[in-house]
């Protein structure tokens, strides 16, 4: 039996008085693409933070490839693609500079790039089809290209678990398709991918499984099943008939 890539066991997180995550359980096997669906404030970002060990859960445990989040971070197993709003796009860095930051964990104290680092960056840029844009300023890319640059950072890092926070926000249909294809390819190569998204119709094409989150995990299973209207109504608070949970 293989060790799960991501194992979130009974995790509860409070911010002060506010309950952000309530006994969440998610197990994700290697090579799977999982979509994380829920409205704003449903705990998607908190779940990412818990997986990366940025928030300490009140209770429960997180294991990445069977190891603690700290150990996994140190080994470079966790790649993260941030939301657009988290990044200052006027920051004077080239696309190559950003992708190179994926290699820092593999470098010495001064983060001086060796040949192996340059090769990994070249390969990652090629993989996301941004080779021609390597020396552009990161802010000069289109929304979809920016997202791919950050995926390239994860590839250069050699991350086996990739977390993407709203990668489809503000991205046009064609870039979305490119990104979907890219993520499918990476998962075929063995990467485990967790994607939070508002964009529900992309989910069945993109993901092998979907998680419906509303502070707790309402549902986890086949995307088509999870995205049925009555299930979505639960997560997005539209359950006007108040039929009770069907989980």
């Amino acid at each position, binding site marked *: 039996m293989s060790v799960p890539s991501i194992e979130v066991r009974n995790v509860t997180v409070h911010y002060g008085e506010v309950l952000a995550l309530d006994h969440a359980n998610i197990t994700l096997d290697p090579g799977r693409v999982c979509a994380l669906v829920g409205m704003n404030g449903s705990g998607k970002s908190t779940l990412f933070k818990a997986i990366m060990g940025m928030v300490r859960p009140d209770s429960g445990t997180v294991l990445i490839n069977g190891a603690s989040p700290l150990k996994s971070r140190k080994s470079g197993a966790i790649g*993260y693609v941030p939301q657009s709003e988290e990044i200052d796009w006027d920051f*004077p*860095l080239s696309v190559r500079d950003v992708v190179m930051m994926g290699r820092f964990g593999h470098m010495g104290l*001064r983060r001086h790039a060796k040949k192996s680092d340059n090769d990994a960056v070249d390969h990652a840029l090629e993989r996301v089809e941004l080779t021609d844009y390597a020396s552009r*300023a990161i802010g000069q890319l289109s929304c979809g290209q920016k997202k791919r640059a950050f995926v390239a950072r994860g590839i250069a890092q050699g991350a086996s678990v990739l977390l993407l926070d709203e990668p489809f926000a503000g991205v046009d249909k064609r870039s979305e398709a490119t990104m979907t294809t890219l993520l499918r390819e990476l998962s075929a190569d063995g990467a485990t991918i967790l994607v939070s998204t508002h964009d529900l119709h992309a989910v069945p094409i993109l993901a092998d499984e979907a998680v419906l989150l509303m502070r707790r995990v309402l549902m986890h299973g086949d995307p088509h099943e999870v995205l049925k209207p009555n299930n979505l109504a639960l997560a997005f608070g539209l359950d006007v008939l108040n039929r009770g949970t069907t989980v």
Partner: protein
Amino acid sequence: MNLIVFFLEPLSYDFMVRALATTLIASIVCALLSCWLVLIGWSLMGDAVSHAVLPGVVLAYIVGVPFAVGAVAFGFLAVGLIGLVRDTSRVKEDAAIGIVFTTLFALGLVLISITPSQTDLFHIIFGNLLGVSWADLTQIIVLGAITFTILVIKRRDFTLFAFDPTHAHAIGLNPKLLGAALLGLLALTAVVALQAVGVVLVVAMLIIPGATAYLLTDRFGRMLVIAPVISAMCAGIGLYLSYYLDTASGGMVVLTQGAAFTAVYLFSPRHGLVGQRILARRRRGSLEPSS
């Protein structure tokens, strides 16, 4: 008067040699640090820490320990208090910064007023480039060298911290530690620059060079070269101007930096105001081929 005499004459005075060395070291170290401060959005924090170190420096003087010890202690105290006020009351961060650093600065003023040998310490507030002693200069060289070395060796980590602290965390680095290191270096830098331009004007040297370089390039690596070069040139020019015009040296250094920023703000090829206007007009023109 020929150019050689123009440059060499002031240096026939020992105090001018020390002044030049001090202002060059301070301007280079400040400029290097300013590149990160302006990108992280810590300009106000630079202002706060550079003021808040005053009581620390005075206490260090009274107790007889190196200024740097008191400065770093009060630098961190200020940052801690700002965070405390912000997080545990409804007061917003800018107000918290304003409250904490002015109060600590005032404490410094009061401490100076009750400390014998007042003249020495009042120089810390407005700077006294021409009164830098050999002992002061030694301290400036040591602190400047330490700060410069750490900034250069760890520059890529600091840049990662400034750009994407979440990624820094995700690959097993400690962004909180990197942030604290930058703040500690900020306090050390403040001590270096105190002698040159004084507490009140340190913040200028901590913001203007980075902001100027930021308008000149889209590469952070180049910013780290451009900022210190411009800053050092301005410091030298400012000092010579103050010598020949008989004006306040610290003020003159900062004025020169301000003038350099203004020139770049207006005429920078890519990000300057004039260049952007011309570009916009040209674009508009090309949309109306009939005119």
